[in-house]
C-alpha cells in the first residue's frame, strides 16, 4: 500500500473537475454557437454580454435564463470537501449528491425548456407561460455536465465502488453517458416519434395507422401485385444471409482444407468489403447487366432478343448484396474454420469416422457459431444496405430506402420514417436474439492452447468438388465485377460512346494553378476533403472509446457488466439507416442541436464503428495476461497509469487496426450518412449517390475507383505498420516467456 497522506491533500482529479465546472459556468458561452463549434468569432463579437455568447453567470446577472441559477448550489458544494479525506463519509456523500443533482437539473432544464418555452404542456399549466426560450447546449453547458458527471463518479468511487478506483468508475460513467446519449436517446426519440400526432400529442392510433400500412405489410406479390417493404426486406435479407454464408463457407473451405495453390489471392478477398463503398457493386452490375450493359447487349445480339430491365428489382439487389457481403462472411468463417482444433478432427478419425462423417458430425457443428455469425452479419448488412436498393431497386421497395424517402421525399413524414425504422430495428434485433438462442449453452471453443499439433484434413471428395466449382465461379465473377469498376471509370459513356477517356477523373479531380496559387477545381474535391477530415477526426475518437470500453469489459468486473456490454454492442445491430433517422429526430432540437454540422457525422461514425474498436480491443487485451496489470498496480501505479503505461503500449497493433478500420469505414459508409449530410458537409459517398441519381455514372464510378484505391493504400499501410510492430513484440517477449 502506498502511504496516503492523511492530512489535507487535495485530490488533483477532484480539483480539476471542480475548476472545469466553474470555468464552464463562469467563462464559456453557455449556448451553442451558431457559426459552428470550432469558430471563435464570438470572442470579439459581444462576449461576454451578448445573450447568444454569454456564460451562464452573465445571463443570470442580466436577469435572464434564471432556471440556470440553481446549478450554483451543486457547483459550490464540492468546494467544502476539497480538503477533506477520501475516507470521510461526508466527502463521498457531498460529491455524489452534488454531482447527481447538478446533472439531473441540467438534463431536466434541457428537456423541459426548448425553443418555444416549456416543452411540456403540464409545465406551462403549472408555472404559466415561460416567456423565454433556450437553444442547444454549448461549451459551457457541455463542460459543466462533464464536471457534474465526474464529480458524481468520484463520489461513488469514494464510497468504495470498484475498490474506490476513480479512473475505472469515471470511465464506466463516461461510457454509459455517451452511449445513452448517442444510442439509446435517439432510438428512444424515434420510438416516441412513431406515436406523435400532427398536433404534437401522442396517440396509439397514429402508430397503428402507420404500422398497418399496406405499403409495409402488403402481401400482394403472392398474386402478382407488389409486396410491402417489410416483407421485401425480410425476404431479401434471409436469402442474402443464407447465400453469403454458404459462399463464404465455400471460400473458407477452399483456403483451409484443399490443396488449392493460390490461397493468398483468395485472402485478398477479405480486404474487399472494407474498402468498397457498398453501392459500387450495384454500379458495376449496371455496366454488365443494365439495359445497355455489356452482357445484355451481347446476349441480345447473339440471340436476337430485346434487352430487358430484369436487373432492376429483387434480382439486381440480391446479386449486388451477395457480391458485396460474401467477403464479410468469408472473413468471419475463415477464422472459425481454421479455429476448429485439428485434434478434434483427428480424434474423430481415430474413432473410425471417415472424412465425410468427420466433416458432418464434428467440423460442421463446431463451425456453427461462425455460420450463425456470418448469417447474422449478412442479414443485418442486407437489411441496412441503402446504396444498392437505391441504385438497383426499381419497384422493389425495401425498408431502408422507404425510410429515406419518408424523410427526404415530398411526403416528409417523420412518423412514418420512425415506424419503418422501428420495424427494421425489430428485424435486426430479432435476428440477433434468434442467433443467441440457436447457439444455446453448448460449448464450441476448441482451441485449448496446449498440444494442438496436427493439420486440418482435406475436404471429403463429395464436398470438395461442388465447393471448388462454386468458389471458382463466384471468384471469377467477383474479379470481373471489380475489373468492370476500374474499366468503367475510363469509358466515356457506357454503351453509347465506348471510347476510353480520362474525362471523368478530370471533371472530378482536376487541379488548376492560378494567381491565387493551387486551386482544387475538380467537382469532387469538396466532398473528398470533407470525408477525409471527418474520417480523420472520427477515427481516433472511435478507437479511444472502443479501447476504453474493451478495457472495462476485459479487465474490470462491476455490477451490470452484461447490460453494459449489451448496450455498447447494440449499435452493431442497429442499421445505419435507423441511426440516421433517429439522429435527425433527436438532435434537431435542444438540448443537443447538432444536425447539419460536421459533429453529427463524427458522432454517428463513432457509434456506428465503436463495436469494431471494442472487438479489436477485447481480442488483443484478452491475450495480455492480467498479471501485467496486477504487477503494475503493486508497483504503485494507479489504474489510469497502468492503462496508459502498460496496456496501451502493448496494444499498439490493435489501436492502429482500430484507427485505420474506423477511418476506412467512415469513408465508405452511406446508410446513416445520407441523412446527416448538409450542403456544407457533404461526404464522398452521398456525393456519388447524388451523381448516380443524375445518371452521371462515369463520374460516380471514377470517384468510387479513386476511393477504393485510397483505402487500399490505407489498409496496405496499416499492414506494413502492424506487421513490423508485431515482429518487434515477439522478439521482445521471447526472453520473458
Amino acid at each position, binding site marked *: 500500500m502506498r502511504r496516503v497522506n492523511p492530512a489535507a491533500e487535495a485530490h488533483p482529479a477532484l480539483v480539476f473537475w471542480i475548476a472545469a465546472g466553474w470555468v464552464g459556468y463562469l467563462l464559456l458561452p453557455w449556448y451553442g454557437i451558431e457559426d459552428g463549434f470550432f469558430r471563435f468569432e464570438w470572442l470579439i463579437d459581444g462576449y461576454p454580454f451578448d445573450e447568444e455568447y454569454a456564460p451562464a453567470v452573465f445571463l443570470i446577472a442580466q436577469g435572464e435564463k434564471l432556471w440556470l441559477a440553481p446549478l450554483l448550489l451543486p457547483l459550490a458544494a464540492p468546494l467544502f470537501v476539497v480538503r477533506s479525506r477520501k475516507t470521510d463519509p461526508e466527502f463521498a456523500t457531498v460529491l455524489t449528491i452534488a454531482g447527481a443533482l447538478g446533472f439531473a437539473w441540467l438534463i431536466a432544464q434541457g428537456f423541459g425548456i426548448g425553443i418555444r418555452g416549456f416543452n411540456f404542456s403540464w409545465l406551462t399549466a403549472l408555472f404559466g407561460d415561460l416567456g423565454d426560450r433556450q437553444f442547444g447546449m454549448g461549451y459551457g453547458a457541455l463542460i459543466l455536465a462533464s464536471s457534474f458527471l465526474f464529480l458524481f463518479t468520484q463520489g461513488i468511487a469514494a464510497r468504495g465502488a470498484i475498490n474506490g478506483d476513480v479512473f475505472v468508475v469515471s470511465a464506466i460513467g463516461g461510457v454509459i453517458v455517451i452511449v445513452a446519449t448517442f444510442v439509446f436517446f435517439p432510438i428512444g426519440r424515434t420510438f416516441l416519434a412513431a406515436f406523435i400526432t400532427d398536433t404534437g400529442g401522442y396517440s396509439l392510433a397514429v402508430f397503428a395507422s402507420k404500422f398497418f400500412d399496406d405499403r409495409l405489410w402488403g402481401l400482394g406479390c403472392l398474386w402478382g401485385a407488389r409486396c410491402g417493404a417489410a416483407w421485401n426486406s425480410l425476404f431479401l435479407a434471409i436469402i442474402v444471409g443464407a447465400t453469403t454464408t454458404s459462399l463464404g463457407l465455400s471460400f473458407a473451405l477452399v483456403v483451409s482444407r484443399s490443396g488449392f495453390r493460390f490461397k493468398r489471392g483468395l485472402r485478398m478477398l477479405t480486404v474487399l468489403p472494407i474498402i468498397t463503398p457498398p453501392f459500387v457493386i450495384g454500379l458495376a452490375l449496371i455496366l454488365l447487366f443494365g439495359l445497355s450493359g455489356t452482357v445484355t447487349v451481347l446476349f441480345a445480339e447473339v440471340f436476337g432478343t430485346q434487352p430487358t430491365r430484369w436487373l432492376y428489382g429483387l434480382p439486381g439487389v440480391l446479386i449486388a448484396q451477395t457480391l458485396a457481403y460474401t467477403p464479410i462472411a468469408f472473413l468471419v468463417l475463415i477464422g472459425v474454420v481454421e479455429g476448429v482444433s485439428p485434434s478434434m478432427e483427428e480424434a474423430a478419425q*481415430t*474413432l473410425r469416422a471417415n472424412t465425410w462423417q468427420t466433416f458432418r458430425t464434428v467440423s460442421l*457443428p*463446431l463451425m456453427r457459431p461462425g455460420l450463425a455469425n456470418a448469417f447474422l452479419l449478412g442479414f443485418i448488412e442486407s437489411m441496412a444496405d441503402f446504396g444498392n436498393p437505391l441504385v438497383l431497386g426499381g419497384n422493389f421497395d425495401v425498408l431502408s430506402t422507404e425510410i429515406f424517402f419518408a424523410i427526404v421525399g415530398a411526403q416528409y413524414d417523420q412518423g412514418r420514417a420512425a415506424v419503418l425504422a422501428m420495424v427494421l430495428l425489430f428485424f435486426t434485433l430479432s435476428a440477433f436474439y434468434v442467433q443467441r438462442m440457436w447457439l444455446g449453452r453448448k*460449448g464450441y471453443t476448441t482451441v485449448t492452447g*496446449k498440444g494442438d499439433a496436427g493439420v486440418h484434413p482435406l475436404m471429403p471428395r463429395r464436398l470438395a468438388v461442388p465447393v471448388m466449382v462454386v468458389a471458382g465461379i463466384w471468384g471469377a465473377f467477383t474479379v470481373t465485377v471489380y475489373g468492370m469498376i476500374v474499366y468503367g471509370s475510363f469509358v466515356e459513356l457506357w454503351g453509347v460512346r465506348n471510347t476510353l477517356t480520362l474525362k471523368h477523373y478530370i471533371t472530378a479531380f482536376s487541379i488548376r494553378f492560378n494567381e491565387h496559387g493551387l486551386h482544387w477545381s475538380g467537382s469532387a474535391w469538396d466532398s473528398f476533403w470533407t470525408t477525409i477530415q471527418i474520417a480523420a477526426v472520427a477515427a481516433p475518437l472511435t478507437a479511444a472509446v472502443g479501447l476504453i470500453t474493451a478495457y472495462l469489459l476485459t479487465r474490470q468486473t462491476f455490477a451490470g457488466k452484461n447490460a453494459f456490454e449489451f448496450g455498447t454492442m447494440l449499435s452493431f445491430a442497429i442499421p445505419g439507416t435507423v441511426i440516421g433517422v433517429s439522429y435527425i429526430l433527436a438532435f434537431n432540437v435542444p438540448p443537443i442541436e447538432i444536425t447539419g454540422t460536421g459533429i453529427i457525422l463524427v458522432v454517428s461514425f463513432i457509434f456506428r464503428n465503436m463495436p469494431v474498436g471494442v472487438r479489436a480491443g477485447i481480442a488483443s487485451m484478452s491475450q495480455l495476461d492480467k498479471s501485467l496489470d496486477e504487477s503494475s498496480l503493486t508497483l504503485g501505479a494507479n489504474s489510469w497509469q497502468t492503462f496508459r503505461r502498460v496496456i496501451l503500449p502493448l496494444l499498439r497493433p490493435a489501436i492502429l487496426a482500430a484507427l485505420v478500420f474506423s477511418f476506412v469505414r467512415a469513408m465508405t459508409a452511406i446508410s446513416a450518412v445520407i441523412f446527416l449530410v448538409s450542403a456544407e458537409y457533404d461526404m464522398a459517398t452521398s456525393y456519388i449517390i447524388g451523381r448516380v441519381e443524375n445518371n452521371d455514372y462515369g463520374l460516380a464510378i471514377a470517384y468510387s475507383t479513386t476511393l477504393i484505391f485510397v483505402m487500399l493504400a490505407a489498409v496496405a499501410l496499416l499492414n506494413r505498420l502492424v506487421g513490423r510492430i508485431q515482429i518487434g513484440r515477439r522478439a521482445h517477449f521471447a526472453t520473458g516467456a
Partner: protein
Amino acid sequence: MVQTEISSKAAPVVFQDVSKVFGEGVVAVDNINFTVEAGRLVTLLGPSGCGKTTTLRMIAGLERVTSGRIRIGDTDVTTLPATDRDVAMVFQSYALFPHMTVLENVSYGLGFSGFPKSEIRGRARTGLDLVGLKGFDDRLPSELSGGQQQRVAVARALVLEPQVLLFDEPLSNLDAKLRRQVREDIRAIQRDLGLTVVYVTHDQEEALAVSDQIVVMRNAAIAQIGSPRELYDSPVDSFVADFIGEANLLPCEVVAIDGEIAEISVDSYRYRLASRGLPKGPAKLAVRPARIVLDEDDGFDATVAKATYVGVRMEYTLDTSFGSIFAVQDDVTHTLETGSSVKVGFKPTGPVLIPET
C-alpha cells in the same frame, strides 16, 4: 439393460525401417525398428522434438509413413488411413467434442464401428463406469474438470476395444497431484483388460512408473529400448544415462580387463565392475547420485562445495579434480560441513561404464 463387458483384442505393433520426412527434408523419424508385444505398455520417451509424437501419430494413421512398414497384428497398416485402423488415441488436449455430451462423446466411435444401436448406449455406459464417471452422461465437456475430461477421453477410446490404445502425453494438462493417480489408473486398466498401449511422454519418472518397456528416442532415432530397470541400470550411452534418472558422468581409466570384469581407476581410486566389452584405456563412467559413498577410507579426494538438507536426505555438491559431482546421502544426522575434504567411493553395484567414445 444388457450388461456389456469391455474386453480387449490386443495385438502387437511392429515398426520396420520406418522413416518420416516432413516437407523439404526435415527428418522427424529416421529409420526406426521396434516391436510392441501384445498386452504390454510401451512408452516412447524423449526430449521435445525427438520424434516420439510423430511415431505415435504414424501408428494412429494421422501421419503417412515416408518409407518402411508398420504392422498391427497380422495386418500391414502402412497405407491405411486412421479411420480404417483398429486403434484409438487419447489426445494431449483430450479433443473431446465440445458440442456433444459426455455420453455422446463416448458413443461417437461406436456408431461408426458397426455396433448395433441397442448396444451402443450400454457399452458407452460401461466405459464410463470403468473410468469412474457414472452419472455424468448428460454433462458437457465444458462442465467437467480437467481430470474428468481426461477420463472421458480414455473411456471414449476404450469402448472401441482397439487392438492398440495410444496415449499422447496424457498427463501434461493435469496438475501434479492428479498425475500420480491418473497414471496408476491408466496402468491398472491396461493390466486388467490386457491392452496393448503405446504411451508418449517426456517425463522419465512417469515412463519408469508405468511402462513394461521404454523406447528412448533422441534426434529422430531410437537411443535405447529396454525395461525400466535395464535403462536405469545399464544405459548404453551418456544421453540415456543422464535422461533416465540423474547420473554423474566421470572420466576414468580402464586399467585391467579380467573376462567380464574391468578394473578402473578414478584418480587413485580403484573399482571393479562389468566391462561391457570395453578395451583398456580412457572411458566414461556413469554414477547415480545415490550410489556414491562419502567418507569411507577408500576413494578419491573431493571437497564439499555445497550441502543441502532436504528432509529425507542430504544433497551434496562436491568439487573434484575433474569437475563437480552431485551426491545424495540418507544419513541426515552426521552431516558434512561445507569446505571439508572427503574421500568419495562407490557402492558395490551402481556405477556403469558407458560404451561410447
